């Protein structure tokens, strides 16, 4: 990607990637340039960043996929006894 001007679709995609630290330097440069003149994307970016901080601060937890699978197997076994 060597264009300087992005459309909003591309800008949002970079912004999403950036939330997971997967945007490279050039991405960030063109995103910043886009944000200078695009109000809608500025709004999206700030909300997106806010969401990231919230999730990080909450230390919210979910089960690992493998653990959930284990739980599911064990539970199905129990469930069979009750039906």
């Amino acid at each position, binding site marked *: 990607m060597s264009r300087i001007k992005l459309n909003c679709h591309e800008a949002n995609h970079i912004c999403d990637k950036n939330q*997971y630290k997967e945007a490279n330097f050039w991405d960030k440069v063109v995103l910043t340039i886009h944000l200078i003149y695009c109000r809608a994307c500025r709004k999206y970016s700030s909300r997106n960043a806010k969401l990231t901080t919230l999730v990080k601060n909450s230390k919210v937890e979910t*089960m690992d996929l493998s653990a959930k699978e284990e739980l*599911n197997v064990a539970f199905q076994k129990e*469930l069979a006894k*009750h039906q």
Partner: protein
Amino acid sequence: MPKHVIDPNQWIKLYSDYLFNYTITRVNDREIAQDLVQDTFVAGLKSMKNFKGEASERTWLISILKRKIIDHYRKINSNKGKAEVRMTYNSDENEGDWLEERVADPFDKTAEDTIENTELGIAIHDCIGKLPEKQAQVFKMKTILNYETEAICNELQITASNLWVIIHRARTAMAACMEKNWF
């Protein structure tokens, strides 16, 4: 008021992450939390006929889970042995003699912080619960479990651009939901 119905087939899908999050903020150990959640579901099955439909399924399961958590703490307390010696090295005269006592503990959060974190976690789970299943799954894997993009793609058999579209939709919905419920 409409009666709530109980359907254990959906339990794992709908409530396991919520219960897990609830437990882990209280016991701080993934293994134990998983065991407790499993115990809760099993106990729920056994006492299904006692479910009167006054509360929602989730509230009902949480009330079982609370008992399980209390039981867990009782058990580890009795394991410790009866004679517990408490030693405090800061008596009144020589308070803070030990170096550790004088340093501000960065992990010593105030009660408000902890409460806020717990509530925020609940709010996030509520919002995730409103997402379509696929979006919720991808969002959780990417944002909370911090899986690599590639790993998720392999696991779910989707392409990377597919994943980013799902993430984008999920994040938009989540941001709107959190804005409504949290701020």
